[in-house]
């Protein structure tokens, strides 16, 4: 990316080597490099092939149920007494989260490449469920790696994946959460490199994944632009989304990055608090190299990766997508954080006021709407991405609230 392009637009990255400023790259074992180059080539070809786009559009409409509504959250707006709050309803997608947008793209790509064995990592299980779903739809073998701790706290999704015909492998190594699931998926890929397509669930990993996954998720922001123009005759004033790896956030943000007047907020998981165990890589981490890219990481002084903690398995990751790291450094996006308790409170408020059970991940974004909206004037248009639905979190929340189900 030339210096000129960089100053004129926030949307030109990455460069041909997969860098967003100093972040990104291709830090993988040699065994995987030929595959990654093959994937990059296949994706570049697919991007410009009208038949690929036609396929995507057709399944987006008829299988996933897009476009997802942009919904005016009237009671939430009244309750908060400030900004006019809109929900981008990604939780209404087939499988109940934004994850399916990306998985559809990658599975159609895998089919083009002739790969019949699909592997994925998953935290909350939403990406695993989406991958298992599309593998079922296209008759592909599906293996999902999931940290043993997450298998325990996301039982409904584990069962869903099994019903869809996927093999769920509980990962016992390391901290037994999302980062270890990703390690194990990479170990599988390095072993079965010629037959296997690795369907990464977020905007992380080696180039071209961060850019490719972002492109597939940009449907969220593109629709939001059109829908807001229809609803209000103008663009929104602020955007809010939760950030773990950051795919739902970049999908909403990216189409608006060059509209300089729009405030953009990414909400990291502050867990028990930023001075305690948390998962806020940008707020509490430093640049390092993990899982194929350079980004902000939670680590100790020796570069050893530290345990992340969040109530939400989907945000429980010690890193963040490299494009977010760059947007943080250049100051285009404001990265803030919400604690476990704030997310839990937001979950309950949203359920009661709007009749929508948001995922614990999305509840982090809603928590910051609750904080920011009252400070804004009534003509301020605020969009929050409801990235997933909360049904999967019911057993966990019931346990925390001391309820028996």
């Amino acid at each position, binding site marked *: 990316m030339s210096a000129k392009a960089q100053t004129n637009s926030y949307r030109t990255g990455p460069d041909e*080597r997969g860098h967003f400023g100093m972040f990104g*790259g*291709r*830090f*993988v*074992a*040699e*065994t*995987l*490099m*030929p*595959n990654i180059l093959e994937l990059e080539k296949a994706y570049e070809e697919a991007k410009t092939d009208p038949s690929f786009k036609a396929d995507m559009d057709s399944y987006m409409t008829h299988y996933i149920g897009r476009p997802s509504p942009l919904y005016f959250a009237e009671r939430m707006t009244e309750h908060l007494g400030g900004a006019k709050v809109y929900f981008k309803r990604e939780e209404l997608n087939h499988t109940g989260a934004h994850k399916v947008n990306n998985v559809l793209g990658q599975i159609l790509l895998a089919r083009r490449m002739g790969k019949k064995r699909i592997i994925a990592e998953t935290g909350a299980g939403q990406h695993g469920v989406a991958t298992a779903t599309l593998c079922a739809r296209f008759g592909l073998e599906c293996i999902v790696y999931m940290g043993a701790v997450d298998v325990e706290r996301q039982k409904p999704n584990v069962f869903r994946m099994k019903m869809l015909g996927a093999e769920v492998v509980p990962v016992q*190594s*390391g901290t037994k959460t999302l*980062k*270890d699931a990703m*390690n194990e998926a*990479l*170990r599988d890929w*390095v*072993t*079965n*490199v*010629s037959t296997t397509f690795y369907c990464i669930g977020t905007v992380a990993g080696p180039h071209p994944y961060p850019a490719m996954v972002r492109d597939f998720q940009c449907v969220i922001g593109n629709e939001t632009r059109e829908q807001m123009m229809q609803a209000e005759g103008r663009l929104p004033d602020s955007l809010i989304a939760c950030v773990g790896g950051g795919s739902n956030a970049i999908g909403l943000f990216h189409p608006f990055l060059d509209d300089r007047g729009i405030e953009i907020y990414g909400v990291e998981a502050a867990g028990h608090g930023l001075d305690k165990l948390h998962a806020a890589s940008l707020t509490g981490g*430093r640049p*390092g*190299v*993990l*899982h*194929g890219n*350079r980004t902000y*990481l939670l*680590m100790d*002084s*020796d*570069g*050893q*990766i530290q345990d992340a903690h969040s109530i939400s398995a989907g945000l429980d990751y010690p890193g963040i997508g490299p494009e977010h790291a760059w947007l943080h450094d250049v100051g285009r996006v404001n990265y803030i954080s919400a604690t476990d308790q704030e997310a839990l409170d937001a979950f309950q408020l949203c359920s009661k006021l709007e009749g929508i059970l948001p995922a614990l991940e999305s509840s982090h974004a809603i928590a910051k709407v609750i904080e920011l909206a009252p400070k804004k004037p009534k003509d301020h248009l605020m969009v929050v991405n409801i990235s997933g639905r909360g049904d999967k979190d019911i057993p966990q929340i019931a346990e925390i609230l001391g309820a028996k189900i």
Partner: protein
Amino acid sequence: MTSRIEARFEKCRAEGRAALVTYVMAGDPDLETSFEIMRSLPKAGADIVEFGMPFTDPMADGPAIQAAGLRSLKGGQNTVKTLDLVRRFRKEDGETPIILMGYFNPIYVYGVERFLTDAKEAGVDGLIVVDLPPEEDDELCLPALKAGLAFIRLATPTTDDKRLPAVLANTAGFVYYVSITGITGAATPDFGQVSTAVERIKRHTPLPVVVGFGVKNGAHAAAIAKGADGVVVGSALINALKGTLDSDERATSRTVEAVTTLVKDLSEGVRSVSKRAAA
């Protein structure tokens, strides 16, 4: 000046045999036992020693090396202590080449320039960093070569003839051929395919080609030694070590000997194959 790596391969060639390269994790199961193991390796028949730098997330390693890294980290191992181990080893042994092997993040966080200076001063000869393919040569490979440290590259079964020149371009010391597509300590390779692959790589480079991944005993080492300039053994040594630990994963009186016994077996395997006729 001839490097320690070149000198050691020359010596092996003169003896008409392949080199034995041994990998152990620095600091596993504790600092002092680890040092005792390291200093016993050359006496037991190791020609080149590789010391693993522990990392929490070793994406290309199997369960044995993952567990070894975690044992080492639990004991407080870090990059500073690993370089100290190298210094102590170097005081006693000025000739055996030392290779540090690991992942980029601990080096990046230590600081690339500072790491290269300290590693060179400690007596390190070469580096193997698993997650730095040629596409990322600017990060460490080129600075390492400038600092006088060999950056040893991994070539794999997926590295085809078209890609090999890029992989070999900035490599030095030797080429490490990964015998399987997979993680360390997993499948035993097909020895016939391995020797074909070694011949293929040798057509592209004058550097010695050593082979690792899946080598478990003297017989495997002998089979590989027929075609390759060296044999690397890691997970098998770590498994031997692990087998002697007590229930709290502490070293016992048998720990050092279990490793050296296997190294002797591997060394006999390597030495049983005469390469004089071929040379």
